[in-house]
């Protein structure tokens, strides 16, 4: 294999890995296209042809035979990885790192799992639920119980998502748990209003990333990926709704 060919291979590998990491972790399509084009351009490719979708990426450089495909199999929300890819791409553009270093750092990033510690995430779920309940409903006495119910609901979501890995089912189960806990806590006299506790506690489960990305993708003209994200958000919302509705039937 000639050195030029090896170099092209490395460019393709780097750009495709960067693109896959970004889509997997919840980036919008336009940013992925932009980043991949920049990588190819900064690495010295004369032209690049891209086809980015939410389930896979297709890329060729210099108009040669031998485009490559990178499927996107899983989707999570980890915005830090998008930010890191962005930083690396900027460093590469400023010639602070070589293409080889860029590629190996991307592979490292792909394997690493650097989330906030578990207790902090649990606390964060509580701190989404309680304050938003107060902001939406002005019901200060129910603040603490909403924090607790919200954190427990999110815990159910987190554990199920880890073991069965179907996001929609986890959301459904978490919403049902929240409903049961809210009714139960009012029954025990810990809270005053079932409605307010549920409204606050469901907030950590809101599909914020798909909603925002769907709007931005549609605006950018990605008429396949945008509606696909919209469906993701709608199914999530419906799962949460069914979970709550099922419990309310037995009220």
């Amino acid at each position, binding site marked *: 294999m000639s050195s030029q060919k090896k170099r092209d291979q490395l460019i393709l590998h780097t750009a495709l890995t960067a693109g896959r990491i970004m889509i997997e972790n*919840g*980036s*919008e399509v336009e*940013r992925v296209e932009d980043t991949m084009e920049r990588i190819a351009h900064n690495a010295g490719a004369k032209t690049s042809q891209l086809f980015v979708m939410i389930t896979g990426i297709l890329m060729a450089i210099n108009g040669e035979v031998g485009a490559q495909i990178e499927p996107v199999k899983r989707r999570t*929300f*980890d*915005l*830090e990885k*998008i*930010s890191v890819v*962005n*930083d690396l791409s*900027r460093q590469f553009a400023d010639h602070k790192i070589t293409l080889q270093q860029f590629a190996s750092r991307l592979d490292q990033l792909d394997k690493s799992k*650097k*989330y*906030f510690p578990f207790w*902090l*995430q649990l*606390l*964060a*779920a*509580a*701190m*989404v639920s309680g*304050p*938003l309940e*107060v*902001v*939406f*409903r*002005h019901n*200060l006495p129910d603040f603490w119980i909403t924090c607790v119910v919200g954190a427990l609901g*999110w815990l159910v979501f987190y554990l199920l998502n880890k073991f069965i890995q179907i996001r929609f089912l986890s959301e459904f189960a978490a919403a049902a748990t929240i409903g049961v806990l809210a009714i139960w806590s009012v029954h025990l006299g810990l809270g005053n209003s079932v*409605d307010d506790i*549920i*409204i606050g506690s*469901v*907030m*950590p489960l*809101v599909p*914020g*990333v798909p*909603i*925002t*990305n769907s*709007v*931005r993708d549609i*605006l950018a003209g990605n008429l396949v990926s945008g509606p696909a994200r919209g469906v993701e958000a709608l199914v999530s*919302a419906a799962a949460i*709704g069914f979970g*709550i*509705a*099922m419990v*309310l*039937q037995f009220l």
Partner: protein
Amino acid sequence: MTVTEFFIEATGNYVATIAFGILLNIPRRALNFAGWIGVLGYFVYKFLVIWGGGYVIGNMAGALVIGVASLQAARMKKMPMILFNIPALVPLVPGGQAYQMIKYFALGQNSTAFVFLIQVVMISGAIAFGFLLSELVNRVRRRVWRHRA
């Protein structure tokens, strides 16, 4: 709205936005900015509603301000814009209305449920339209900025 309510809502929004950011694992140095943008967007919405602008205009203006402020923050911090606008959007989500809708559908009172359904659709549409407008403002600003440079 009294002063106490104002401070309670501001604190609540700031904490909730940052906490949602933690759930999405956004980098630490973006958290503070995202929190302030969330507070800003919510108060634009809130004051427009208080001054008689209505829910739809309020949500649209809130989303517009969030979009423009996020791009500014993204430029200052040299980080992607979605780190700022996704958490900041959470306080605008029509959670209360969506819940009431589901509750009345579950209880079989469809005519009441439809009232809330229409509110949810209107508010979501307004937020989406606000984002669209912010994209417009951002593109115009980018043009002007490039001409000046």
